[in-house]
């Protein structure tokens, strides 16, 4: 009688044993031990610095508790976190900043749910989220005190510029991609030149141009606030890169798709919105998520043209004499904020990529 539980001869889903993975040959054992001991040494020092010897709170709000300590002085975060997260937003109104950021985060999480993956739903979701954010932050209605965008700061400003840039950039990217593929040579060539020019310039030069040159070349009524010009510059930069992602997604489609749609008598708009773009987006999803990740990191560049975003507010948090020695802690905190956002987004991208690959086998 044969047992039904005979193990398969080779099961790719089963991982080889720990011994095989780390210590299969003498040389491997040596390398593993060296690597592990280096890792252990670094981890131990990190642990003693960040946790065991750290000072977490400062009862009187001054930096005296951190004199002569060997570990991290997290008290600086404890006293200054409001400055880092909210900038100079009025203290008693900071709950609005919190809610506004929360709204964007919730919208971002919701748009990861496949149920929302149609253009009208995603669009509505993001416009609603952004409107909530803007109403909460700008105020002036529902009895909220009005605050100008120039008073916004910290993480809230970063989130605002990012969300607004993506919201404007995505439709622009689709338009640019379609224009570059247009069969009217003049439109296709001009758009191509525009996209390639923007792509070969550094983002900071574009932001700088938006902040400084646009006011010179625009009539008075179109100049608007500096922050909006910078957001449009940011959105254009994103759109130029994203347009190329979408275009390569379109080009990866078999020609038969477009031809079949044409043969059915669909008009250009029907072909594009019902046949081409839905499939192109599926192809372009991995590079698009990657572009979202890169763009979030690039929002930090606005510090150079004088905005008080999360890095600048971090600098202000340790910059005022009293806490000047605690710069490492502040930078680690800001880096962790970025890390949480960027890492979760890129993990989600990797998950999506695996999910999409399943359908192809």
């Amino acid at each position, binding site marked *: 009688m044969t047992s039904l539980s005979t193990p398969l001869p080779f099961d790719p889903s089963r991982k080889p044993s720990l011994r095989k993975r*780390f210590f299969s040959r003498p040389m491997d054992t040596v390398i593993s031990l060296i690597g592990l001991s280096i890792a252990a040494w670094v981890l131990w020092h990190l642990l003693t610095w960040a946790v065991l010897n750290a000072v977490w709170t400062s009862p009187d709000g001054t930096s005296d508790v951190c004199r002569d300590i060997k570990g991290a002085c997290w008290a600086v975060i404890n006293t200054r976190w409001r400055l880092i997260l909210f900038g100079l937003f009025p203290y008693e109104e900071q709950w609005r900043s919190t809610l506004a950021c929360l709204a964007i985060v919730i919208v971002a999480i919701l748009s990861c749910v496949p149920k929302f993956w149609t253009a009208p739903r995603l669009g509505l979701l993001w416009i609603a989220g952004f409107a909530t954010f803007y109403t909460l932050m700008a105020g002036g209605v529902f009895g909220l005190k009005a605050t100008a965008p120039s008073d916004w700061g910290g993480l809230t400003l970063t989130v605002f510029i990012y969300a607004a840039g993506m919201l404007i950039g995505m439709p622009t990217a689709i338009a640019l991609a379609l224009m570059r593929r247009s069969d009217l040579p003049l*439109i296709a060539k001009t758009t191509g030149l525009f996209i390639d020019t923007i792509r070969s310039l550094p983002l900071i030069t574009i932001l*700088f141009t938006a902040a400084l040159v646009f006011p010179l070349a625009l009539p008075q009524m179109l100049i608007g606030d500096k922050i909006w010009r910078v957001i449009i510059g940011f959105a254009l930069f994103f759109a130029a890169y994203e347009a190329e992602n979408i275009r390569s997604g379109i080009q990866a489609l078999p020609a038969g798709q477009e031809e079949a749609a044409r043969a059915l008598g669909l008009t250009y708009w029907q072909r594009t919105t019902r046949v081409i773009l839905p499939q192109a987006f599926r192809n372009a999803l991995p590079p698009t998520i990657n572009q979202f990740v890169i763009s979030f990191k*690039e929002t930090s*560049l606005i510090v150079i043209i004088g905005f008080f975003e999360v890095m600048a507010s971090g600098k202000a948090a340790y910059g005022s004499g009293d806490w000047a020695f605690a710069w490492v802690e502040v930078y680690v905190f800001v880096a962790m904020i970025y890390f949480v956002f960027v890492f979760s987004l890129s993990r989600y991208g990797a998950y999506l990529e695996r999910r999409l690959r399943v359908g192809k086998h």
Partner: protein
Amino acid sequence: MLSIFASRKARRFVAQAAFLAVIVLVIGGAVYQARQNIAAQGMTSGFEFLTRATGFDIGFKLIDYTPYSSYGRLIVVGLLNTLFLGILGIILANVVGLIIAILRTARNETLNILGTVYIEIFRNIPMILQAVFWYALLTQLPPPKQALQGFGLFLSSRGLYLPGLNVTGGSAAVFFLCLFVALIALTIFATSRRFSRVPAARRGLIRWAIAAIGCGLGAVALYLGRIPDTSLLSLPELRGFNIRDGIRVSPEFVALLVAMAIYGGAYIAEIIRAGFLSVGKGQVEAAQSLGLTPWQVFSRVRLPLAFRAVLPTLINQYVWLFKATTLGIAVGYTDFFAVISVSINQAGQTLELIGILMLGFLVINNSIAFVLNRVNKAIALKGNQLRS
């Protein structure tokens, strides 16, 4: 009247004409408005300011520059700084990237984990934050009197001190030019079809000859250009409260270089890793069965195949890294962008200076892409070599 829209040809013509008209209107309107605004603010336009003296000094320069130098020279200084930082940064990022990629594709899982941790940490934090962090770290180092030292190097709050040579700047430039020309000659010799009929035995000889001539000419240039009454080698040493001799590399430059190497290295590592994974198993097995040593399998089979497979992606990454030199302004390094930004503040010629800035980046980035794409075409794998 409306019947002309019935013709497809006419419709296309009208659409393009309308598009052109909109573009001309937008650009024309912007130019008109800019002229009006400039006239209203009483500013002059034109490029005469390039010959005016700047009146301020800057921190990092590769060629002579004083407050009496012109704006034109200032811009050249900035361009050279950007090129210098960009080239060194890309080379270092490649080295870091290759090491991490080897760790990530190694058979030993400990090394894989270490490589992954490196990438996940440094790729997910903005480069500007890293640059500012390294800069803060470097400026918080002990003063020259208590500088960290070893291997003839000094690391203090005033920067990094390297051993150097007592030679004039011009001869050093000639030296690097000789090396560069020799490198180009070697590349041409290796890739051009004209030399492909040279027998293999003589190829090695010719290669050595080119390298020797390049190095020899460079050495002669260095020897001729030495500063009289000094020893050729200039070692940094502590004298009084400061470090004398040697080459001082400013903390701004070191911070940016480290940030470029670490952040760019993390991206390049992932690209090279993808290249290693694309090399077919059969290629490696064939090489092993021919009796090649592990090092030969790596350097003669896996690395060249991987490099060729990912060169197009690498080119994009190089262009991206080159653009990242503009972060110099965040730590006070006088790169091309920082120089333009200062000039706009001082001279006020916003439009002209922004034009120079954009033109500069367009020319540099497109030439990087052009040259490397030619290299890519020359060494790209023909046929189906990449299949396993």
